[in-house]
């Protein structure tokens, strides 16, 4: 198994290491905190200089994110007193809500496309990785190299052919098209990552199951999959992060129906004002699913590791 340093680090070393880790954590978390706090600022607070660290929080940004509003006359506003707390926030700015914004829709698109493509990439990747790991496949090494080679340039380099292909296949601006695209891009990563994990699982487990009276598929399902849980969880996280954050293809290939959140969020800034709080609110909400997903799967990342049931 892995080797550990015999000597305990001294308390001074620990202290220095701790400081470095804290500094790094602060540097990476700063922009995040900035975005989250901006989401709760007024538009004026958001662009105030020097930047405000202490301010009176408001949900205006979030209300603006989810609604469309129009400016109204004083008479109109008095004739229609605010019915809800969010009406009230809008009223104070001399406006009225005319309907929901498209953020909800875009967010849902992101969920469907992100999770859908992650699911497909992981399922197909697991099956392919298992086959590559266990069966004698003609030209196996060439195939694996070919699969990897799709990652040797940035996916966006093939944007134009994909754009044309999608247009003639009628896949432009459809959920199916985007799921297919992200699955395709993620599959190489998923096959390679999972092959590594499955290679590590001794064949004897499956062979024992075969002798114990299970079919090949049952052996795969009941013995290999639980062993590969760690690999599957980490692969799923990588795939989701890519599909969730992808911007360039989303701008190019979606507009109305299947647009995901990343190309939509910048448009929130609005035609008139500079609605940074709404943008920040959108970005904050956008962060949540990936974070929850990662935290949920983190348990598997740690618990999936088993030692010693096969002695090496």
């Amino acid at each position, binding site marked *: 198994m892995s080797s550990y340093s015999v000597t305990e680090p001294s308390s001074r070393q620990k202290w220095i290491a701790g400081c470095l880790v804290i500094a790094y954590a602060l540097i990476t978390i700063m922009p995040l905190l900035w975005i989250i706090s901006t989401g709760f600022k007024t538009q004026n607070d958001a662009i105030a200089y020097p930047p405000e660290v202490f301010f009176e929080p408001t949900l205006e940004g979030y209300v603006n994110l989810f609604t469309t509003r129009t400016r109204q006359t004083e008479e109109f506003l008095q004739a229609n007193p605010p019915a809800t707390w969010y009406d009230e926030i809008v009223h104070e700015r001399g406006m009225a809500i005319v309907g929901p914004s498209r953020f909800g829709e875009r967010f849902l698109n992101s969920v469907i496309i992100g999770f859908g493509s992650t699911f497909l990439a992981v399922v197909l990747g697991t099956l392919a990785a298992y086959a590559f790991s266990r069966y004698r496949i003609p030209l196996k090494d060439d195939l694996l190299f070919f699969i990897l080679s799709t990652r040797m340039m940035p996916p966006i380099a093939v944007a134009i052919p994909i754009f044309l292909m999608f247009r003639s296949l009628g896949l432009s601006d459809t959920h199916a098209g985007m799921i297919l695209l992200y699955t395709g891009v993620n599959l190489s990563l998923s096959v390679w990552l999972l092959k590594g994990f499955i290679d590590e699982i*001794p064949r*004897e*487990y499956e*062979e*024992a*199951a*075969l*002798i*114990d*009276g*299970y*079919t090949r598929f*049952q052996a795969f399902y009941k*013995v290999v999959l*639980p*062993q590969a849980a760690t690999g599957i969880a980490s692969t799923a996280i990588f795939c989701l992060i890519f599909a969730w954050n992808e911007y360039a293809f989303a701008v190019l290939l979606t507009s109305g129906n299947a647009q995901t959140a990343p190309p939509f969020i910048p448009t929130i800034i609005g035609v008139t004002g500079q609605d940074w709080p709404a943008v920040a609110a959108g970005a904050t909400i956008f962060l949540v699913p990936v974070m929850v997903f990662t935290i949920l799967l983190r348990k598997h990342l740690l618990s999936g590791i*088993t*030692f*010693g*049931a*096969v*002695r*090496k």
Partner: protein
Amino acid sequence: MAEIVIQNLRKEFGSFTAVQSSSFKIEDGEFFMLLGPSGCGKTTTLRMIAGLELPTAGEIYINGEEVGQKPASKRDIAFVFQMFALYPHMNVRKNISYPLASQGMPRAQIREKVAEVAQILGIEAILDRPVGGLSGGDRQRVALGRAIVRNPACFLMDEPLGALDAEFREHMSHELRALHDRIGATTVYVTHDQLEAMQMGDKIVVMNHGVIEQFGTPQDIYDKPATMFVAEFIGSPHMNFLKFHGSLAAGATTVEMHHQTLGMPALREAFDGDMVYGVRPEHIRLSDSAGYRGEVVATEYLGTTQIVTLQTHNGEVKARIASDQVARVGESVGLDFDPATVTLFDNQSGRAIRSNLNAGVLSHG
């Protein structure tokens, strides 16, 4: 219960031949050893019997039925892997009951069977423990439990004690043999340890480079080796080989070596050329009156016996003698070989020359 017959079994991996045309027969209820050095094709042979590997050619019969192309699950065998291969995500109880669950056995009955097996193996206390933290011996027992719980027609074991330390191995090998005597199911056992094979087996097949060198009882294999490889592989220190050149007629009972006449069992065939006079260390006595002489090079004290290494005109010889007998390094002594135990080999091919000693063994070897 099963009788296993292997006929002309062959396995190629690409251009590499792992097993070349093996044939042997395993009787019902036998504890059968597949013995050979690393890489000789033992595991491959066993995996073909199990159905984990398809033979390139040849047949495997279990109870008269040809099973060469049948899937493993249809052969009614249990396999104990070299590294145990316990399912790491299940506890001991689940590991043992897993083969029964696949047969759709009702839960209550599974519990009963598992309890019974746990009792036989003395592992009742660890039934609900995860397999990860078990000691080597307990893992071994769980692996055996998973095998015997199904009452298979035969057990196939691939170096099941290989992962244990020496002391515990000894103990487990007795336990295993006792278990076999109790259950009585045919067992095929792979090992590269000649002592283990001699101690535990009813019959032994000795393999080398994918070829079966000899097949027989431990005594026959030890006393009447069919090839120089077997004579060398079995026994520690191995059989002494005195090289000489000569021409012998059928019926000859002596050979001439360095102007001395040495006895041997009467030959059944004539031979002319380079030969090897094979004699085990314990069949050599040191005596001053003997004509064939050697010089003591080293002695190694082993308690009740000692191994004396001597330099002779025909090569180095090791003799096992009582430790109270005096042998001083540098001294010249006479060597007395027990003629009845001697085997002559063809030095070129390594095969034993037929004699009154080994004729019965070689005829079906």
